[in-house]
C-alpha cells in the first residue's frame, strides 16, 4: 500500500462507514428506546427514507458541483419556494384553463425555467461583478425570499391536482417517484462531473483558479452554468415534492441551504473547492436522513436532532483536518 493510501481510503469510505455505524446504533438502541414495535432496519422504512431524502438530495447534487467549482449557493431554499409557488399557482391561471391535465407539464416547465433563471442570475452576478458567491447568494437568499412573500403575503398557496398527486405517489419497481428522481439526478450529475469537459474544468477552476485562467479555461461561463444547474435542481426538488403535497407556505425551504451544505460537506467535498464527489454527497444525504429518522425512532425531539447533527458535522471536519495533516512537522498556523 502506498503511503497515504490508508488515510485516503479512510476519507473516501468514511461516509459509508458512518452510515453502517448509524444503522447498527439505531437498530440496537431502538430495541430498548423505541415506542414502536417495528425494527429500524425494516425494508419499507429504508425505502421511505430514500423518498424522504429526495428534496434535500436533489439540491445537494447541484451544490456538489457548485462547491467543487469553488463557489457556494445559499439561495437554494428560496429558489425552492419560488419554484413551488410557480408550479402550484400556474395551474390555476386562466390562460391555461383549456388545457385540462396538460397544464401539468406546462406548470412543471414554468417552475423549472423559473429556478434555472434565478440560478443563472446568481451565476451572472458572480461572474460579472467578481463578488464572492457567498455574499451574492446571501443577498439573493434574502431577495428571493422577499419575492416569495410579495406573491401571497403570509398566506399559503395551494392547489391540488389529483392526477398530479397520483403521479407523485406512484411507485415503479417498488420505488417512489421522488426516489427515482433522486437516483436519476445523482446519475446525471455524476456523469456530468466525471465524464464531461465541463465537469473536469469545474474541478480545475475550484482547485487552482489561476492555473485554469492561464490554461485558457473561461471561468465565468462555467460558474454560471453551474449556478443554473443548481437553480434547476432546486426547482426540480420543489416540483417533485409539491406535486404530492399541493400546498406551499412562504417559509417553506428555509434552512434547506444549510441541510444541503451539511450533506455535501459530510460527503467529503472540500469547502474551498477542487475536490468532492457526487457519490460522497449521496452518502452524506443518506447519513443525515438516517440520523434525523433514527433519532426520531428512539424518541429524540427535533431540537436534539439539530444539536447532534451540528456536533457531528464539526467532528467530521476536525477528523478530516487530522487525516490531512502531513505529520507533526507540518507548519503550525
Amino acid at each position, binding site marked *: 500500500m502506498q503511503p*497515504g493510501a490508508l488515510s485516503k481510503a479512510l476519507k473516501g469510505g468514511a461516509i459509508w462507514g458512518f452510515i453502517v455505524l448509524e444503522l447498527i446504533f439505531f437498530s440496537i438502541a431502538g430495541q430498548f428506546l423505541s415506542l414502536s414495535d417495528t425494527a429500524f432496519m425494516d425494508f419499507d422504512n429504508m425505502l421511505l427514507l430514500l423518498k424522504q431524502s429526495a428534496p434535500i438530495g436533489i439540491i445537494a447534487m447541484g451544490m456538489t458541483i457548485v462547491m467543487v467549482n469553488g463557489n457556494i449557493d445559499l439561495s437554494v431554499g428560496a429558489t425552492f419556494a419560488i419554484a413551488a409557488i410557480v408550479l402550484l399557482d400556474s395551474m390555476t391561471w386562466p390562460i391555461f384553463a383549456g388545457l385540462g391535465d396538460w397544464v401539468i407539464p406546462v406548470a412543471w416547465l414554468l417552475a423549472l425555467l423559473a429556478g434555472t433563471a434565478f440560478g443563472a442570475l446568481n451565476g451572472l452576478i458572480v461572474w460579472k461583478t467578481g463578488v464572492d458567491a457567498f455574499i451574492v447568494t446571501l443577498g439573493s437568499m434574502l431577495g428571493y425570499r422577499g419575492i416569495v412573500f410579495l406573491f401571497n403575503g403570509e398566506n399559503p398557496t395551494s392547489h391540488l391536482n389529483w392526477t398530479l398527486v397520483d403521479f407523485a405517489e406512484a411507485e415503479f419497481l417498488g420505488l417512489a417517484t421522488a426516489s427515482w428522481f433522486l437516483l436519476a439526478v445523482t446519475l446525471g450529475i455524476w456523469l456530468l462531473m466525471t*465524464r*464531461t*469537459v*465541463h465537469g*473536469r*474544468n469545474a*474541478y*480545475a477552476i475550484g*482547485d*487552482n483558479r*489561476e*492555473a*485554469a*485562467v*492561464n*490554461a*485558457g*479555461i473561461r471561468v465565468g461561463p462555467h460558474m454560471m452554468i453551474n449556478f443554473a444547474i443548481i437553480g434547476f435542481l432546486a426547482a426540480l426538488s420543489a416540483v417533485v415534492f409539491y406535486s404530492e403535497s399541493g400546498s406551499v407556505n412562504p417559509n417553506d425551504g428555509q434552512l434547506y441551504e444549510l441541510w444541503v451544505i451539511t450533506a455535501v460537506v459530510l460527503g467529503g467535498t472540500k469547502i474551498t473547492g*477542487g*475536490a468532492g464527489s457526487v457519490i460522497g454527497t449521496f452518502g452524506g444525504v443518506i447519513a443525515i436522513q438516517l440520523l434525523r429518522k433514527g433519532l426520531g425512532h428512539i424518541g429524540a425531539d427535533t431540537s436534539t436532532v439539530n444539536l447532534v447533527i451540528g456536533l457531528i458535522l464539526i467532528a467530521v471536519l476536525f477528523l478530516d483536518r487530522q487525516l490531512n495533516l*502531513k*505529520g*507533526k*512537522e*507540518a*507548519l*503550525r498556523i
Partner: protein
Amino acid sequence: MSHVKPVLHLEDIVKTFPGVRALDGVSFSVMPGEVHALMGENGAGKSTLMKVLGGIHQPDGGAIFMGEERVVMSGPLEAKAKGIVFIHQELSLAEELSVAENIYLGELPRKSFGRVDWVTLREKTDAILKKLNVAFNARTRVGDLSIANQQMVEIARALTVDAKAVIFDEPTASLTDAEKVVLFDVIADLQREGVGITYISHRMEEIFKITDRITVLRDGQYQGTLETAETNEEAVTQLMIGRKLDLSRNPSHHELGEIALEVRGLSCGSLYEDVSFHVRSGEVVGFYGLVGAGRTEIAETLFGLRTPSHGTILLEGEDVRLNSPADAIAKGISLVPEDRKGQGLVLGMNCRDNMTLPQVDDLKAGPFVAEGAEISIFDQYRDRLDIRTPGWKQKVGNLSGGNQQKIVIGKWLSMKPSVLIVDEPTRGIDVGSKSEIHKLLRSLAAQGYAVIVISSEMPEVLHVSDRIVAMYSGRVMRTFTSEEVTEDSLIQAISGLGGDKAA
C-alpha cells in the same frame, strides 16, 4: 544569421509602473532553433518582460513581432494561440486532478455531448511522458507527485501544442541532475524542430551548456547580447551586476562573541535531516541553497513554527524547546520572513502600528494602547535604521520595498532579540536599497546580534556572511568561511556534487 527571420522579436519595449521604469527600451529576439538565455538579477526586469510578452502587462512603448507580423498580445490566451508557451517556475497546477488533465488543462479532447475523450487523452499524455522518461503515468494525481515531478508535468505542457516559441522560467530550480538531463534533451528536440527557446536561469553552468546567445538586463535596461561561445562567466556577471564580483566579498569581520545559537543533529521529517551549525553573537551566517533545500524550514523550526523530529536547539548553551513563535520571541529569536508583504507586514496598517505589532500587548496605559510609547519606539528605529517615510501615519503598503523591509527588521529589533533570522532579505528590492540592507545587516552584527541570512542570491550571501552554510536537499553539505569560499565550490556544494570534499 541575417537571412533567417527571428520567430519572436521584441523591440524597444518600455513599461512603467507608478514610480518605476521597469523596462526601459529593451529589445530581445529569438531565432528559430536557438536557445537564448535571458539573465539579470532579481528585479532586473526579466519577469516583467515575459509578462509583456504573455499579454499580462501591456507595454507603454515598443512592439512585439512574430516572424514578419506585428502582434498585440491581449492576454495569456492569445499568446498561447499564437504558439508562445510559458513554463512557469511557480507551479500552475491543479493538485486534485490527474497528470493528463493538468497537461491538457483547458484543451481536453472531446467526444460528443462535451464528453472527455479519456482514451485519446491518456494516449497522448503517455506519449509525452515517455519522451520525458518519468516514473509516473497519465492517471497519477498531481498532488501525490514530488515538487520535481510536478515541474516535469509543467514542462510536459510545452510539448502539447505546436509551439513556435517556448519560455522556460527557471525550470531547473527543483530538478535533480538526472531530470535536468531529460529536460535538456527535450530542449534539444524542440530546437531541432525549429522552435525558438528563451531560457531564464541564474545558473551559469547551465547557461553555458545549452544556450547559443545570452541577453543581459539590469535595472530594466538592456545591457547587451553576447554569443555564448565567445564569452565567459566573468563577463556575464559583470554585465549583470555592473561591477566585478570579487569586489562584493565581505571584507571585514567583527569581534566575535559567545555562541548565541547552536543546533545539533536537527531533523524535521523529510524536510531536512541531521542539520548542525552554530552562530556566534556578532557573526553573520549565510544559508545558501536551491529552492526546496530546507533553509526556510530550518528558520521556521527555530521560530517555533515547526516541531523538529530529532535534535536539539541550544540558546546560549541551554537546551530549549520552542513551541510557538511567542515562545521563540520571548527567548530572543526573531524571524524576518521570506514573503515580506504576505508574512511580514499588515499592508493596510500604518508604519507605527506595524512596528509595534508584536509588543502592543505590553504597551498599555490602563485599558488603552499607549500611543506615546508606540510613537517613541517608532521614532527610535526610524532614526536608527534610516527608514524614509513622511511620518508614522503613512500606510506601509505605500512605502518602497527597501523601507518596508526596514520596518520589518525594526519591528523585530524593538523586541530586543539576540538572534535575528532574515529570510531572503532583498527579494524584490531595487539594487540601491539592496546594498543598504546589506550594510544594515553587517552593522547589526557589529552591534552584537547573531544574524542568520537565508538567501538564494550568491552575491548577497558572499557579501554579507562571515560563514556560509551550503545546503542541498535537506542536508548541510559544507560550511565555508568567507576566506575559503569560491563560487565554484559553493555551486558544487549546493548542487550536491562533491560538497564534502575539501576544496
